C-alpha cells in the first residue's frame, strides 16, 4: 500500500467543491429562472413572482379577489368518543332523554320495525355526528331537525352514550349466510367504488361510519338514493356521494337487501 500523496490533494478538494457549487448554482438558475420563464403561468408577473412560484410559494394563489365559498357539508370533527370513556351518569341521563324523545320511532330498546334506523349498539360518534348535523341543518328531516334543535351538546353526548351501551341485535347463528354481494366484499375498482365492508365493518371500520346489519332495507335504500341525488350531503369529503353516484338502482337494492337481512334468522324476511 502506498502512502497517500499530498501535494495534489488540496487541488482535488478545491475542484470538487467548486464543481459542486457551480453545478448547484446552474441547476438553481435553470430550475428557478429559465424553466419558469418559458411558462406563462409562472412568468406573467415578473421574475421574482416566477421564482417564488417555482419555490412553491406564489405571492398570490389566484387572480380571484374573493375566494369561492365552499358549500359546507358538515361541521362535525369526528372525535373518537368511545376512547374517552363514558360514565354511568351520562348513560342514565341519555336513557331519560331517549325515553322522552326517541323511543316513539326508534323503539324502546333502540330497535324497531318502523323503517327508522336501528340505534342499539350504534357507535357513539355516529350518533353524535348525525344529531349535530341535524341540529346545524346539514342533514334534513322534518322531525329530526325539530327534535335536535333543543338538544345541548351534553344531551347529544349522553344520548350517544346511552345507545352505544345497548346491546346490538345478536347476529343469529341460524342466520342467512349467503355470500355478500361483490360490491360489499370487493367493490368495483374500475368504477372507483370501494367495498362497503372496508368502512362499515367486515374488513375494517372507519371512524364515523355506522354499522348497518339489520337496518331496515327501505331506510338504507332511501339514504343511498338521497346521497346519489345530492339531497343528503352531510358525508364529509363526499365519501358516500362519490360511491353511490356510480351505483345502479339494482345495485343499491342489492346491497341494502344484503345488510337488512344480515344476521336475521332464515325465514324471517
Amino acid at each position, binding site marked *: *500500500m*502506498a*502512502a*497517500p*500523496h*499530498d501535494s*495534489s*490533494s*488540496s487541488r*482535488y*478538494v478545491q475542484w*470538487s*467543491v467548486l464543481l*459542486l457549487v457551480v*453545478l*448547484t448554482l446552474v*441547476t*438553481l438558475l*435553470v*430550475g*428557478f429562472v429559465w*424553466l*419558469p420563464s418559458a411558462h406563462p403561468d*409562472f412568468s406573467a408577473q415578473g421574475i421574482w413572482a416566477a*421564482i417564488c*412560484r*417555482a*419555490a*412553491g*410559494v406564489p405571492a398570490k394563489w389566484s387572480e380571484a379577489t374573493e375566494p369561492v365559498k365552499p358549500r359546507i357539508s358538515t361541521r362535525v*370533527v*369526528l*372525535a*373518537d368518543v368511545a*376512547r374517552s370513556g363514558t360514565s354511568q351518569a351520562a348513560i342514565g341521563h341519555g336513557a331519560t332523554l331517549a325515553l322522552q324523545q326517541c323511543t316513539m320511532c326508534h323503539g324502546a330498546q333502540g330497535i324497531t320495525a318502523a323503517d327508522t334506523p336501528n340505534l342499539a349498539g350504534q357507535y357513539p360518534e355516529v350518533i353524535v355526528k348525525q344529531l349535530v348535523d341535524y341540529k346545524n341543518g346539514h342533514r334534513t328531516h322534518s322531525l329530526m331537525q325539530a327534535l335536535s334543535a333543543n338538544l345541548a351538546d351534553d344531551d347529544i353526548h349522553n344520548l350517544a352514550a346511552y345507545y352505544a351501551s345497548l346491546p346490538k341485535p345478536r347476529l343469529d347463528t341460524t342466520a342467512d349466510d349467503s355470500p355478500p354481494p361483490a360490491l360489499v*366484499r*370487493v367493490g*368495483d*375498482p*374500475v368504477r372507483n367504488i370501494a*367495498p362497503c365492508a*372496508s368502512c362499515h365493518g367486515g*374488513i*375494517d*371500520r*372507519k*371512524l364515523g361510519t355506522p354499522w348497518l346489519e339489520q337496518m331496515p332495507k327501505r331506510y338504507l335504500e332511501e339514504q343511498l338514493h338521497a346521497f346519489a341525488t345530492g339531497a343528503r350531503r352531510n358525508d364529509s369529503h363526499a365519501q358516500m356521494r362519490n360511491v353511490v353516484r356510480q351505483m345502479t338502482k339494482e345495485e343499491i337494492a342489492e346491497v341494502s337487501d344484503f345488510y337488512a337481512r344480515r344476521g336475521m334468522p332464515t325465514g324471517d324476511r
Partner: protein
Amino acid sequence: MLAHFWVAFIAFAAALVLGEWQMYVRSPLHGWVENPEHYYRSVTAHGTVMRYVLPTLVAMGFGYAITELSLKRPLIGLTWAWAGFWLVVIGTVMAATPVALGHASLLYTFYPPMIGSVFYYLGVVLVVVGSWVWVALMSINLRSWKKENPGATIPLAMFGNVAGAYLWAWTAVGAAIEILVLILPVALGFKDTIDAGLARVLFSWTLHAIVYFWLMPAYIAFYTIVPRAIGGRLYSDTMGRVAFVLFLVFSMPIGIHHLFADPQVGAGFKFVHAVFTAMVTVPTFLTVFTIVASVEIAARLRGGKGMIGWVKALPWDNPMMLAVTFSFVMLGFGGAGGIINMSYQLNETVHNTQWVTGHFHLIFAGAIVIMYFMIAYDLWPQLTKCRPLSAGLIKVQLWTWFLGMLVMTMPWHLVGLLGMPRRMAYFDYTHPDIQAQAWTVTVSTIGGFVLMVSGLLFIYILAVARKGAAEPAPFTFSAAAHPGERTPLALNGFAIWVTMMIALTVVNYGFPIAQLVSLKETSVPAVRVGGQ
C-alpha cells in the same frame, strides 16, 4: 456476523414467500382476495423485511467482516456489536407482530395520515438505532486503525464500507424526524392530526438515499471481491473511491423526485432534485466501466485476444462471473427505467404504476440482492469453516434468480406503461379494458414462483454447507492493477465529502422543509388503521 446473515436470510425467505402469495392472489389464477386488508398486511411485511431488515443486517454483517478482514485486526466493540444486533432483532419482532395482527397495514413507507400501531414504529426505530450502533463502530474502528497506521491508505473495502455507514447515518435522519416528531405523538394518542405533506417530504429524505445504502455492499463486492474471484485485477482503486464519495455526496439531496406529483413542493425544487438524481448515474457508470475493465484484465490474463474476442476467454463457469454479468444486465434495465422515473416529465407516464415496482425489483432484488447472495457464498467458508459450496447448485440458483426476475419484472414494465396502478389487491379482469392485460399478471406470478424457488435454494445451499474443511484459505480482497498507485489524501478520508453531503442537503431540502413547517393549518386528521 453469521447471526446477522442468518436472521437476514430467514426473514428474506419468509418475505419472499409472502411476495409470491401477493402475486398469486391478484393474478387471474386466483379469485379476488376476499379481504384486501390481508393483501396490504402482506405487502407491509414484505416491504418492511426486504427493505429494512435484510439490507441492514447484510450491510452490518458484511461491514463487520470487512473491518476484520481488511484492517487485519479484531473488531473493536464486539459487545456493542451484539447489542446492535439484538436491537435489530427485537425491533424486527416488535414491528412484525402488529403487522401480522393487522394493526399496521401501512406499507413500509408509512403513508401518513394513516397511523398504525405504535409498536410498529418503535420496532422500526429500534432497527435503525441498532444499525446506528454499527455506524458508530465502523467509524471508531477506522479511527483507531488510522491512529495505529498514520499515513497509510485505507483499504478500498473499508473505505466503501465506512462511506456506506456515513451515508446511512445521515439519510436515516429524515425518517427518524418524521417518526419521532410527527408520527409517534399521533400514534400514542396525544394528537389527532398530522402534517402529511411535511411527513412525505421528510420521508423522501430517507426514501431515496436508503437505496444507495442497500447498494453499497453490492458495489463493495464489485470492486473488492469480483476481480479477485475471477482471477483478475481491479482496474483502478481510485475510481472505486471516487464512486463511493460521489454516492455519499449525491445520493442524499434527491429524494423529492419521489414527490413529483405532490402539490406541497415547488416545481423548482422538483427540477433541482431531478438534476441531482441524474448525477447519481455518474458513479454507476464509473463502476460499470471500472469493473468491465477489471474483468477484461482477467480475460486477457487467461489469453483472451481482440477487441471483443476477450469476452470468450472469461471464466464463464465461475459463479461470480455469472453473478456480476446478471447483476449488470439487471442494473442496465433497471437503471434505464430509473432514469425515466427521475425525469420530471417522463415520470408523469409511469408515476405510481407497476413500472415503478418493476424498476426497484430489478435494481434492488435483482442487481443488488444477487450480489448479497455472492457475498454470502464468498464469506461462508470463512464464517463457518465449511467445505466449498457446490458451484453447480450456486449456478442454478443464480440462473433461476436472474431469469425469474426478468420474467417477473418485464411484464410489470409493460403494463406500467399502459397505466396499471401499483399496490392493487385485485384487478377486475372481467372489465374489457383490463382483460387484455390479465396474462401479464400470470406471467409475473410465474416469474415470482421461480424467484421463490431460487431464494429457497439459496437458503438450502447455505444450510447444508458441511463442516470439517481444513482451515480455509485466508480471505483476500482484489489486488489493484497498478499496485503503486497513489491515493490522493482527499480520497483517504471523509471529512470533506460528508461536509459536502450535509451542505447539499441543506440547500436542496432546507427551504421546502422550512416552508412546510412554517405553513399554518396544514395538518389533516389521522386515519387509524387496523381498528385501533
